[in-house]
């Protein structure tokens, strides 16, 4: 499933049906689930898009599903929809990182605007994740020595000093460095530093 999908989880069949019809007509791919359990058992790591989630459901409720997704590190943005204007639930949902909290009956314009925002956020997160993955893939191809050289180069150590520390000749350092730059696809020292930094930032 590569295109972004709107996942609808609500125990009220007409609500599910009408939402998926409306969003389908608006050009979104949708996928409905009658319960939180159904969604969890079907959920795939590569799914992306956003989740329209009812709070009050028989069985696992919306807030519990949110916690499950957080602990499984599934980064789908969640838009809560509820027939109860329950402040406490809204607060809990938003504190746990919900994208938004909407009340039924849904205002369609508001719903669509919220979905657009959530999908943008999802796409951005997905891009970030892809970039990180790419850099990590490149780094995985380095030998242990090349990795050592990269760490010292990014710390700003001169070749001579690196050679002394590793007990090899400055010329050999030059060779390792050139191979490392090639594998990392970095054309200059600043570019290399940026790659390493972005990795560190995203892994925090």
């Amino acid at each position, binding site marked *: 499933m590569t295109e972004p999908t709107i996942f609808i989880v609500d125990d009220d069949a*007409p609500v599910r049906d009408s939402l998926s019809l*409306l969003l389908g007509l608006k050009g979104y791919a949708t996928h409905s689930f009658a319960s939180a359990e159904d969604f969890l058992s079907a959920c795939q790591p590569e799914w992306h898009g956003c989740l329209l989630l009812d709070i009050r459901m028989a069985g696992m409720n919306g807030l519990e599903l949110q916690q499950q997704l957080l602990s499984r590190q599934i980064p789908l943005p969640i838009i809560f929809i509820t027939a109860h204007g329950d402040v406490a639930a809204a607060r809990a949902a938003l504190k746990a990182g919900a994208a938004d909290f909407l009340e039924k*009956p849904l205002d369609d314009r508001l719903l669509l605007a919220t979905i657009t925002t959530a999908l943008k956020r999802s796409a951005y997160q997905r891009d970030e994740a892809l970039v990180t993955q790419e850099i990590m893939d490149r780094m995985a191809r380095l030998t242990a020595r090349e990795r050592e050289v990269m760490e010292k180069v990014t710390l700003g150590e001169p070749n001579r000093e690196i050679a002394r520390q590793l007990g090899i000749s400055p010329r050999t350092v030059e060779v390792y460095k050139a191979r490392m730059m090639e594998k990392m696809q970095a054309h200059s020292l600043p570019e290399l530093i940026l790659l390493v930094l972005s990795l560190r930032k995203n892994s925090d």
Partner: protein
Amino acid sequence: MKSLRLSAGYLILYVFLDWVSYIHPLLPLAITPWNPPPGLSLAFLLLFGLRKWPALLIAALLAETFVRDIPAPFAYLAASSLALTTCYSGAAALLLGPLRFDTVFRSLRDLSWFLAVALTGALLAALAYVAIYTFAGLVPPDKFLNSILRFWVGDVIGIIVIVPLLLVHTPFKTIHWRWTGETTTQAASVALALWIIFGLEFTDEFKFFYLLLFLPLIWIAMRHGIRGSTLAILGTQLGLIAAVQTGGHKAAAVIELQLLMLALAITGLFLGMAVTSRRLLESRLLEQQAELDRALRFAAAGEMTSALAHELNQPLSALTSYLHACQLLLTQPKIQHTLLTGTMGKAVNEARRAGQVVHRLRNFYRGGIVQRQQISIMAFLKEGIAPLLNRAERHNISIRISCPQKLPDIRVDRVQLETVLHNLVYNSIDAIAEARSARREIIIDASALSVDAVCICVADTGPGVPSEVQPQIFEPFTTGKIDGTGLGLAISRSLVEAHHGKIWLDKSFAGGTRFCFSVPVSIPTGNHD
């Protein structure tokens, strides 16, 4: 200025009381068996504050000089006046300060401390007073103890008769006192007891007959609490004094009469206070119960509203989405008729689902009814407002019920219609309390409306309902109160309508608000349900 007038009034009353109670004096100190002025002084300080103590000194000096005419130099008069002032101001300070005496005078605790302080204060006053004049050479040594005893008992009687009387009947408290046939009989019984004891020759020798005086006192205390008992004590005392004055009762019996007065007063006060504090407790409990009922009813209404919102929002949400989808389908270049028809069908189903929710709710309310019982209108009105009387009194509002005798009994679900009455009266109390109206009165009247219905109206002297609110006054969530839910009148309306009655705002009523509702009367032959 007001304070000065107050003190002047006190001075005049003090000297006057001293003068009228100048009976059977133990000369030359003029110690009288019934001495109300110290009671007046103590009540004066308790009610108007300790800072008024100089008035006590002046009053005592005036009385010593002009009423009692004591043959001693001024220095002794001044010393004795100062001693009296110190003792009674001290007593007042002790009560108001560390003993936290409440001048509302409604608890047995306050009564007990008051009696203890009165006994001690009067004893100290007696010791100081008699000692000063013994020093002046006016009291023969063999009369010393006797004088102290007479002074002490005389002052104690004066205090325990006058102070409770004034505290309980101060003019700034509202007095709901109605003179009824029973009150007349009670007053007559006091007089009868006095006549039996003092009027009939053959009872003179039997002290046993004194006990007769306790009977009317107990009766009055049981019926009217501390308010009644303080008045009864005063009446009995006055009667005793009058009897002694006119009947020429043996002078040797004065100390006996004093002790009788003391016993009567203390008994009456404790009994009256016990009755009053218990009634207070009962009405407080009743009021709390009423508050709780009300809170629960509204909590139930709140829960209901929340559940209703959920039940209605589901179909409404689906309905909105379906209709929006229909709009989108119609804007497409090639209209998919099957999908459009199907979607519209689904929208219709959702609208129907919302309708069913409303229908179920109405059935629920109908199902809550009706346990009708026959009851007289007067009883219904009295019991309906009983839990609110305390609240009304607290806001200084009087509630009057006017109900003609000839009205037939009504046949209603009592809990439900009491809720209606309760709501209306509660609103009236709030309206008057918030508006600070000068006239503070709620009038509940019942009248015949037709052959099979009576009309009950609740009118108040509040600000009235603003004309722009009047049309939707019975709609839910319409409220003029800050903490109101706006459900009271809406619920009242559905309860009245469940009885096939009507509730309306009397727009012709000027000078406040008047709500009326009709109630079916009991028809002996037909089955109404």
